């Protein structure tokens, strides 16, 4: 006849190896916080905001054309490359679970060919091809670089018009501004280890 203490010890001895294996390491699904990525994103946000506002003030003048300002894009793109390299060094996974979901969703909402619109509708297949397969943090930074490229395409395509005031919100509230906001929210969440959207540091 065994005592309760012995029964407990025997049970613990049976369960311990299993729990030990289970608890040997913590789960790691997202990349670690990187102070330089955090600072780099805040700096880029300031640079992009200042640049777009400066361009709007110079719209229609030679100082506001793409040719007079293309150095900004070279520098900003190089800064993004550095942040992407750092994110790749920290990555936790090789893919982002939402990448396939996004591709399927975008394929379903592709507008019909005969759609009437005063502007050419976005090329969804091109957008699909450009969604990279990597850790979510890396994907997010690559999307910001893509957004910078789209700003450059826009600026170049505007010719002498430059960047008019009507472009402020599509660039800085939606568009590139939204991409930067999302990445900064994620960095704050990684830093605090919890939801950033409504936390003390939330934006």
């Amino acid at each position: 006849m065994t005592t309760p203490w012995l029964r407990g010890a025997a049970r613990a001895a049976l369960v311990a190896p299993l729990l030990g294996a289970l608890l040997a390491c913590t789960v790691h699904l997202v990349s670690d916080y990187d102070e330089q990525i955090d600072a780099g994103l805040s700096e880029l946000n300031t640079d992009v905001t200042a640049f777009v506002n400066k361009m709007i003030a110079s719209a229609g003048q030679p100082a506001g054309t793409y040719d007079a300002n293309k150095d900004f894009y070279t520098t900003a793109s190089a800064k993004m490359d550095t942040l992407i390299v750092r994110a790749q060094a920290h990555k936790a996974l090789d893919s982002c679970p939402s990448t396939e979901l996004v591709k399927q969703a975008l394929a379903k909402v592709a507008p019909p060919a005969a759609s009437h619109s005063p502007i050419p509708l976005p090329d969804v297949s091109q957008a699909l091809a450009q969604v990279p397969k990597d850790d979510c943090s890396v994907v997010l930074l690559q999307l910001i670089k893509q957004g910078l490229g789209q700003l450059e395409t826009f600026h170049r395509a505007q010719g002498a018009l430059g960047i008019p005031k009507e472009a402020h919100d599509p660039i800085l509230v939606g568009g590139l501004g939204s991409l930067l906001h999302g990445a900064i929210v994620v960095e704050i969440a990684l830093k605090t280890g919890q939801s950033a959207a409504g936390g003390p540091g939330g934006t």
Partner: protein
Amino acid sequence: MALDTDALVESMVSAGETLSGSIWHDMETFAVPELKKIAVQIVAIEEAMLKTPPPFTQEGAQALLNMQVTATVGVIVAMTTLTMLSVQTAVNSILAAVKNVVNKAVKFTLIA
């Protein structure tokens, strides 16, 4: 002290029950407002192109529109990251709860 299944389950459930609230909170305070902002910009670009003369060239308007598509993908990817962070936090909290219950039951640090 033997392992108490009820206490173990309660600790695990308590550690994990904040998960859905945290994901919904991120959805409500981050993803939905961002998607709304982007939707407003898509309409604004189209309305701007109806002006005479339009402030954007055709190619310029298309680049701005493509930027909104990229931003939409960005919101989904950022939301995914926040969700995965919440899952990671919840799973690790559950594992920590199990560790505490087990160590308390055996009265020594069986699992460090």
